[in-house]
């Protein structure tokens, strides 16, 4: 596809249109851009959370979120294009490049399924889960790569499934039946699923598939050295091994598995297992999850039935005690189902993973019955011989062997495992299945770690960006210099979350900020670097000084003073149930082009379209550029006063207002001039509060310093072009209910301010710049440095170049933004003509200090 072609072209206002229309058009584009920025960050935050692997999701989740991410990135780029009059065409190219990569990972599966209807476990690895389902893929992996014993067997692949369904025209028939389903009516679901299952079980297995299954069975028989005599023929267990997003249903036992199947029942049982894909719970599940039937398929594991003497389950970790990492083995006599179905209490053996021969605990239970294979197929419950009923099913040696297998599986899959095993008549221990064990770690239930007593609680609430435990000395970061000096192993404490903090993330044990959003850029980075982080604590910098030893528990959003040894053991977090699954792998690959932020410094030379590697980069760049574009909107207002409304107020400004909608009280928009109380724009009202602050009402003349005055005269004579141009122009406020773009020329300086403050924290910001002055360049520079000192104290990110100061504050709550706008209003008045006074360096700090202490006189001595 080509983003540059075939757009539905919106008409942007032309020169003939009024400037008001142009502003409205640009403002509308800007708002859409900000909205999409918020949405994109939400998608990214959500993806990163899923990448932690603790939540289960399907492939449709990946498609949906990738689609949304692209949509919003594209919407941002398109709106910047509108806003900037097509100034950044290369952004489209950058986005198209990233989109192509995502499509490659996401699009129709690149790998064509194998031509084989049947695969043996020698041929299967875990990467083939899409063709043979998770259960088969794991068995292949265990057999081929881990070399652990598994039963003889083969997989009927998804190609076999497709062959079976298409041979009977079942895809179409199933679709038709499914159209009769009303998602809100369980009756229609039950009825349709029953009919679909009926269609499948009564369909004919095509001869090529039938032959393939029978030949595969015969090969097993030969490998097992069994004759063709009926009593010698191996029995088979047929286990469902669904692919794709239904893998979790498969492991949850929703699909059918049939044990002890005789060869003559193989084909009919295969059909029953396939049909279980359409049980009512499975159909309802897919409907609710938005999973398409096209994305699922049923592969079947056909395993030689083990004549189990004993069987059971192994957990390589305690399933709900996060701190207990002993290996737990359960065992019953006979076949496995009784070990899990609760029919009898199994023996249990607890093994120390650090010394596999050390059996920590043995509980031998009373086992009066067992499940066994029937000669004619099927299963039967039999009594256990009395002398065996209270005897251990496993010897210490067998327990050690099983624990060794379990640990090998866990190490291989890098995740706690839930394993089914069986002991056959020859005394061999076999692995029947291994799947991720969902350990109920504290992460799944944030806030579940009770507060540890005996340590002062420094912080009790905040927004958790990444859960975990981190401990070390606090180190407050207020500048780039602090970041450079950030010590290894410290806890980073900052007022505001900023992507710049990435510079210290590898060294940081945890991050705490006063303010910040979990959907923000920095939160993404914290997740990427797996650094426990609590944002929006409000009080971190005020409460935790540099050097204080602290323990951060971001499972619960708590910070303790001192080291809390009870929590340190949790620093090693459990791996996730989703990791290593095929769906997870797709997400990981797709997210690589969406979530990482490689741009952290807007001042860097590579902050440009051609260096965008991810959608996050594109979003960040477009976001930044959009401010520049909006910032300049005030410039276009100058000289076009005719449609503007004048403000009548006691402020030393000739101020015109252009309302984009909702900025002026209803009924007052048509007036030639309005009063302060007619303003309904929240940010503008806040700024005006500052501009009319009582501290500036005295009629006392501003103090004048003689050399400063001379400096002004000299500058006038030399005719500094910039200041002369600016002098005497009107000030403009382009406003809406939540938006303000303010540009003002007071005396010889120029200040511009752009702000949005609404209910969405992520969209709120103030951009401010101040330039020029009447005095010489040294004094002008001193003045902007004094302004910079004040703005830094007010939490702005500030940059000074010559006589220009640029500052940005973003992602704070509306109330705080308005409070800061009030202060910026006061600062604008306070710094009028201040340049003339700045005769030595001492004034820089003195003037800033005066302002911050609420003393608005320009008297250096207060």
């Amino acid at each position, binding site marked *: *596809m080509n*983003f540059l072609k*075939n*757009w*539905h072209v*919106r*008409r*942007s*206002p032309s020169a003939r*249109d009024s400037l008001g*229309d142009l502003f*409205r*058009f640009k403002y*509308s584009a800007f*708002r*859409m851009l900000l*909205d999409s920025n918020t949405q994109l960050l939400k998608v990214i935050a959500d993806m990163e959370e899923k990448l932690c692997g603790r939540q289960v999701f399907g492939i*449709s989740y990946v*498609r*949906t*979120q*990738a*689609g*949304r991410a*692209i*949509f*919003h990135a*594209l*919407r941002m780029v*398109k709106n910047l294009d509108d806003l900037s009059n097509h100034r950044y065409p290369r952004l489209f190219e950058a986005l198209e490049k990233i*989109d192509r990569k*995502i*499509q490659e990972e*996401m*699009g129709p599966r690149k790998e064509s399924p194998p031509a084989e209807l049947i695969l043996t476990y020698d041929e299967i690895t875990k990467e083939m889960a899409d063709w043979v389902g998770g259960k088969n893929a794991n068995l292949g992996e265990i057999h081929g790569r881990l070399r652990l014993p598994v039963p003889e067997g083969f997989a009927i692949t998804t190609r076999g499934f497709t062959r079976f369904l298409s041979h009977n025209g079942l895809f179409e028939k199933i679709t038709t039946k499914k*159209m009769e389903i*009303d*998602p*809100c009516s369980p009756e229609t679901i039950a009825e349709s699923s029953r009919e679909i299952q009926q269609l499948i079980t009564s369909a004919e297995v095509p001869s090529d598939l039938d032959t393939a299954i029978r030949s595969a069975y015969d090969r097993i028989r030969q490998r097992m050295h069994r004759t063709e005599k009926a009593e010698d023929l191996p029995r088979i267990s047929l286990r469902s091994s669904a692919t794709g997003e239904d893998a979790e249903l498969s492991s949850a036992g929703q699909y059918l598995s049939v044990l002890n199947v005789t060869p003559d029942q193989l084909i009919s049982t295969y059909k029953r297992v396939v049909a279980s894909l359409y049980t009512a719970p499975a159909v309802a599940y897919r409907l609710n999850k*938005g999973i*398409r039937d096209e994305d699922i398929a049923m592969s079947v594991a056909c395993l030689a039935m083990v004549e189990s003497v004993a069987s059971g389950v192994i957990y390589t970790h305690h399933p709900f005690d996060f701190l207990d990492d002993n290996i737990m083995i359960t065992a019953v006599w006979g076949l496995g189902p009784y070990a899990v179905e609760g029919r009898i209490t199994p023996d249990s053996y607890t093994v120390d993973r650090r010394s596999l021969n050390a059996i920590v605990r043995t509980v031998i239970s009373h086992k009066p019955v067992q499940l066994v294979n029937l000669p004619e197929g099927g299963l039967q419950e039999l009594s256990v011989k009395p002398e065996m009923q209270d005897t251990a099913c496993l010897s210490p040696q067998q327990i050690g062997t099983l624990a060794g297998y379990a640990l090998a599986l866990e190490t291989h899959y890098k995740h706690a495992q839930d394993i089914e095993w069986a002991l056959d008549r020859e005394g061999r221990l076999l692995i029947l299945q291994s799947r991720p064990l969902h350990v109920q770690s504290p992460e799944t239930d944030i806030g579940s770690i009770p507060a540890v007593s005996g340590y002062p609680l420094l912080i009790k609430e905040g927004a958790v960006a990444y859960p975990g435990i981190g401990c070390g000395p606090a180190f407050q970061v207020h500048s780039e210099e602090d970041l450079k000096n950030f010590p290894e192993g410290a806890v980073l404490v900052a007022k505001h979350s900023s992507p710049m903090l990435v510079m210290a993330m590898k060294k940081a044990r945890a991050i705490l900020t006063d303010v910040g959003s979990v959907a923000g850029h920095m939160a993404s980075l914290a997740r990427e670097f797996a650094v426990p982080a609590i944002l929006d604590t409000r009080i971190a910098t005020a409460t935790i000084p540099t050097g204080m030893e602290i323990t951060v528990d971001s499972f619960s959003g708590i910070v303790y003073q001192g080291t809390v040894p009870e929590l340190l053991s949790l620093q090693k977090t459990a791996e996730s149930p989703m990791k290593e699954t095929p769906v997870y792998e797709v997400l990981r690959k797709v997210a690589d082009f969406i979530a990482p932020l490689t741009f952290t410094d807007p001042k860097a030379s590579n902050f440009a379209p051609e260096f965008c590697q991810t959608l996050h980069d594109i979003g960040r760049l477009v976001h930044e550029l959009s401010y520049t574009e909006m910032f300049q909107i005030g410039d276009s207002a100058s000289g076009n006063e005719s449609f503007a409304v004048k403000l009548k107020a006691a402020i030393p400004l000739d101020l015109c207002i252009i309302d984009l*909608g909702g900025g002026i009280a209803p009924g007052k928009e048509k007036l030639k001039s309005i009063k302060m109380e007619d303003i309904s724009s929240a940010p503008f009202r806040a700024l005006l509060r500052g501009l009319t602050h009582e501290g500036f009402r005295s009629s006392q003349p501003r103090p004048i310093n003689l050399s400063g005055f001379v400096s002004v005269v000299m500058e006038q004579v030399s005719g500094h072009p910039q200041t002369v141009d600016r002098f005497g122009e009107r000030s403009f406020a382009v406003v809406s209910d939540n938006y303000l773009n303010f540009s003002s020329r007071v005396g010889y300086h120029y200040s511009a301010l752009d702000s949005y403050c609404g209910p969405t924290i992520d969209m709120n910001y103030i951009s401010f710049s101040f330039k020029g002055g009447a005095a010489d360049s040294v004094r002008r520079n001193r003045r902007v440095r004094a302004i910079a000192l004040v703005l830094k104290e007010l939490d702005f990110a500030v940059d000074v170049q010559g006589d220009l100061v640029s500052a940005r504050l973003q992602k704070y709550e509306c109330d705080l933004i308005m409070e800061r706008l009030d202060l910026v209003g006061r600062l604008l008045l306070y710094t009028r003509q201040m340049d003339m006074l700045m005769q030595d360096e001492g004034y820089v700090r003195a003037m800033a200090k005066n302002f911050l202490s609420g003393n608005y006189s320009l008297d250096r001595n207060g």
Partner: protein
Amino acid sequence: MERIRLLLVDDEDDFRTTLASRLRKRDFDVTEVDSGYRALTSIRTAAIDVAVIDVRMRGMDGLETLREIRRIDTLIEVIMLTGHASVESAVEGMRLGAFDYLMKPCDINELVAKIQDAYQRKLVQEASLK
């Protein structure tokens, strides 16, 4: 503010009727139809400000519907609603000028806010043509 004239297009009857009644309670002037074809008829015969269209429908799907709407009326703002997004449909929707792309089921407040934003956008577009 004038009542926003909304067209709701979805072939899932339960979902559509429930959503329509909730939107009517919020004072939208809602027309509901169950197919892309009927959506086109509505647009030809009645004034519509914003259309909310399900992407996946039997017969003419949401994107085709959007494409056809664009032939008739370039000013209607369209919000795509879908339970099954894909990169392709997102890009195509954006290319065809969809205003936004929401996931089903969506939060009613979020949808209402989007409809209002879309309506504002339409007013801006109309103003620029005057």
